């Protein structure tokens, strides 16, 4: 955004910084109401907010996105959810995937671990999660975002951090509700949920379904840098179903996601043989778990969890269409695992958490592909691809020692023994200070990402790949000014070794462990909430370089977000949020600009909510309020990606039995 007038930005900041009021009880109570009785008994009352305080005790920087924020801001995709947080940048190709870079390292979505109710949703074959709209966000209780390496507890892929999506519990949200949303680019988002809980029988269940469809943006012709024709096709259809059953100490959970998205934006159609319609990337995710929580006594708890995951690129996928053919893809993968977690609070000073985990997975070694002989003929159904069976045995242990008032020492490790990548030992340690107002954390953590079949076999293939390894140091300070006013700053130094890079040769390309990426970063955050007004702001500085000190492309040094919500009455509120992303170097030369730069962007979003009107809630969202023209970087033939124009959406929600939407 070259024409950004920074004076406006400063005015916003001044307005933001001067707004203070007295906090009502209601927000704090709503947070407490979400806790179980046993959790409530562990809430320390010396500080104000359960959320802020609990996060202050964790040996990592953690942000929580509440269900209220998700609904109020009208987030439709996982990228949307993360867009107002510090430390995130994006490469949204406005197609079958969106790439999310946490703390300054570009990647194929395989450096951050995404979990739904603790079960990974990263695709099994590549280790990369899918950004996009297939997440049933209406059924989300909260999303916890952990910054920094976490392999010491979670194993592979938890290099830059973790995103844990926690779905609603039937016990806490009994009732039925439904919503429908319609808006620009033929976007439809429909949801329905029903949850029931019987206190006497200690039994309950919940089911929630979602359908979304959207054409995302106007990318035809000039609007899309002339990469595609005016009649290009670019759709995404998503279906999701979540189910949960509670009985006594057992929880059964099921998540199904079906994503069908055009692959048009992967390629340029103008001047090439590729056509910009007819492709469809069809992928299904299915996860299920059965968990048993057993309290041996107040201090000793055992959790048993058996889980399974299926992530399959379906055999009706059309990867691309050219003037002479259609390409069919098929790639099935599944995994089954079992985990035992023991949590032992020996006394008020010393506690342990330890776990044993075993996983067995069957993965395709690559895509099974077929081709038709014309642009209008579907390819034959691809045959079963060659598969490999892998196993993983892991154990981990973490201790927490309160050695002096307000000081906690954390130390832990995880040991993984894989049939593919052998043994990996991952330690971490931290010192955490927390008093009523001030918190400080000194953290060291390491992490790894094991190569997956997609890495070993893509392009020319390379079977000698090693795990990527991360080491990280972090120091953070937080300060609670009052029960709902909070500020924090984090400094971190991350180093990714044995980094997987694409190596190009005359015969083709392959992945190899080449060099390092080093990131020095600072993140600032502050928030305040009162009866009427809620405000937040954050700023991120990232200095990301390779080991030869060249700047890492696709990472801006500066990014910032701030927002405000004002409740005019109990029923009517307005939200205004803003995202700034600084200049980024593009991996490839951009013909339309004559350089390798993607300019900075300042994008604003406005939303209105009119709630509790005879059981109905009405919401209006205006995304990209000022219709700013802005782009994301690209490592594909389209040399940069135009982002959506102004998008107006209208939503109606109906709560049949409950106000807990």
């Amino acid at each position: 955004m070259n024409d950004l007038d920074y004076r406006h930005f400063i005015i916003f900041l001044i307005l933001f910084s001067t707004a203070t009021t007295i906090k009502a009880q209601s927000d704090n109570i709503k947070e407490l109401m979400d806790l179980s009785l046993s959790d409530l008994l562990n809430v320390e009352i010396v500080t104000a907010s359960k959320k802020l305080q609990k996060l202050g005790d964790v040996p990592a920087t953690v942000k929580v996105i509440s269900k209220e924020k998700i609904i109020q801001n009208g987030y439709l995709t996982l990228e949307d959810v993360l867009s107002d947080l510090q430390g995130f940048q994006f490469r949204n190709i406005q197609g079958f995937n969106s790439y999310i870079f946490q703390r300054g390292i570009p990647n194929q979505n395989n450096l951050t671990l995404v979990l739904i109710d603790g079960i990974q949703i990263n695709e099994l074959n590549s280790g990369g999660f899918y950004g996009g709209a297939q997440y049933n966000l209406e059924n989300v209780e909260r999303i916890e975002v952990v910054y920094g390496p976490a392999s010491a507890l979670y194993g592979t892929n938890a290099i830059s951090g973790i995103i844990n999506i926690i779905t609603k519990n039937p016990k806490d949200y009994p009732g039925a509700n439904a919503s429908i949303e319609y808006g620009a680019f033929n976007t439809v988002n429909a949801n329905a949920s029903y949850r029931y809980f019987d206190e006497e029988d200690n039994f309950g269940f919940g089911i929630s379904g979602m359908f979304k469809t959207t054409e995302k943006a106007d990318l035809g012709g000039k609007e899309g840098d002339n990469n595609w024709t005016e009649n290009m096709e670019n759709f995404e259809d998503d279906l999701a179903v979540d189910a949960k059953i509670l009985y006594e100490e057992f929880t059964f959970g099921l998540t199904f996601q079906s994503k069908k998205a055009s692959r048009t934006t992967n390629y340029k159609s103008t001047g090439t043989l590729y056509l910009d319609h007819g492709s469809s990337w069809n992928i299904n995710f299915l996860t299920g778990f059965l968990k048993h929580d057993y309290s041996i006594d107040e201090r000793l708890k055992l959790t048993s969890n058996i889980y399974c995951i299926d992530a399959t690129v379906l055999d009706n996928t059309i990867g691309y269409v050219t003037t002479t053919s259609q390409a069919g893809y098929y790639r099935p993968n599944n995994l089954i695992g079992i985990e035992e977690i023991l949590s032992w609070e020996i006394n008020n000073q010393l506690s342990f958490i330890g776990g044993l985990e075993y996983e067995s997975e069957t993965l395709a070694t690559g895509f099974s592909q077929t081709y038709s002989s014309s642009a209008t003929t579907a390819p034959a159904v691809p045959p079963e691809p060659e598969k490999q069976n892998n196993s993983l045995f892991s154990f981990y242990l973490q201790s927490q020692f309160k050695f002096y008032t307000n000081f906690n020492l954390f130390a832990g490790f995880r040991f993984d023994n894989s049939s593919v990548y052998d043994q990996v030992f991952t330690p971490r340690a931290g010192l955490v200070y927390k008093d009523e107002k001030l918190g400080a954390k000194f953290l060291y953590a390491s992490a790894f990402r094991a190569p997956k079949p997609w890495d070993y076999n893509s392009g020319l293939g390379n079977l000698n790949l090693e795990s990527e390894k991360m080491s990280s140091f972090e120091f953070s300070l937080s300060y609670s000014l009052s029960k709902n006013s909070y500020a924090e700053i984090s400094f971190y130094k991350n180093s990714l070794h044995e980094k997987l890079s694409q190596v190009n040769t005359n015969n083709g390309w392959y992945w190899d462990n080449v060099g390092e990426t080093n990131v020095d970063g600072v993140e600032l955050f502050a928030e305040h909430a009162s009866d009427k007004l809620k405000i937040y702001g954050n700023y991120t500085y990232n200095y990301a370089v390779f080991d030869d000190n060249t700047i890492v492309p696709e990472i801006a040094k500066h990014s910032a977000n701030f927002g405000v919500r004002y409740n005019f009455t109990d029923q009517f509120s307005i939200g205004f949020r803003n995202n700034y992303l600084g200049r980024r170097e593009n991996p490839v030369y951009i013909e339309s600009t004559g350089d390798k730069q993607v300019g900075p962007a300042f994008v604003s979003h406005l939303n209105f909510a009119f709630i509790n009107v005879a059981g109905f809630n009405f919401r209006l969202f205006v995304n990209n309020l000022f219709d700013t023209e802005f782009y994301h970087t690209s490592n594909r033939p389209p040399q940069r990606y135009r982002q959506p124009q102004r998008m107006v959406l209208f939503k109606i929600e109906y709560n049949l039995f409950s106000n807990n939407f």
Partner: protein
Amino acid sequence: MLRLRYFVPVLILFFLGYVSEIKSQEGNTEANVKAVLVYKFTKFLHWPENADRDTFKIGVLGDAEIASALKIITHEQLIKKKPAKIEELNPSTPLKSYNIIFLSQKSTMDIKNVLQKIQGEPVLLIGDKEGFGEKGAGINLIKQDGKIKFEINLSSLRENGIESNTQFINLASVLYD
């Protein structure tokens, strides 16, 4: 274009200004935690049929903050599938018509008088003072290591006809019988 030399100082000033400007406020989270606990307790307890009324009534003696927090909670939540009514009481108020009486440590009323007023009635007395559990409050809130824990007096619950389950009893720090 937003230049670094403006952007970073402004942000730092903003955060410093923000930090210094907001006045520290006295927290009432303790009242919130106690009020939410009172609400959560009702999910584990059963009152006899003769306590069945159109509304679930909670009387609070000596703590306006707890009463205020309970009002916020019950504004949106039913208790035992009924709307709840929260009232701040004075020592002369009859107590038999309530499902729960919350007796704060700030109250001038003696626990013996309260117990006398609810004797044999389907009324749960929740105390909020060290020693109230032993003296006969069915449930008593106590502070330990900066956290709120609770005691259960099983014989008092029985005398008032209130049933609890094992899951709930296991969460209590102290049991009296």
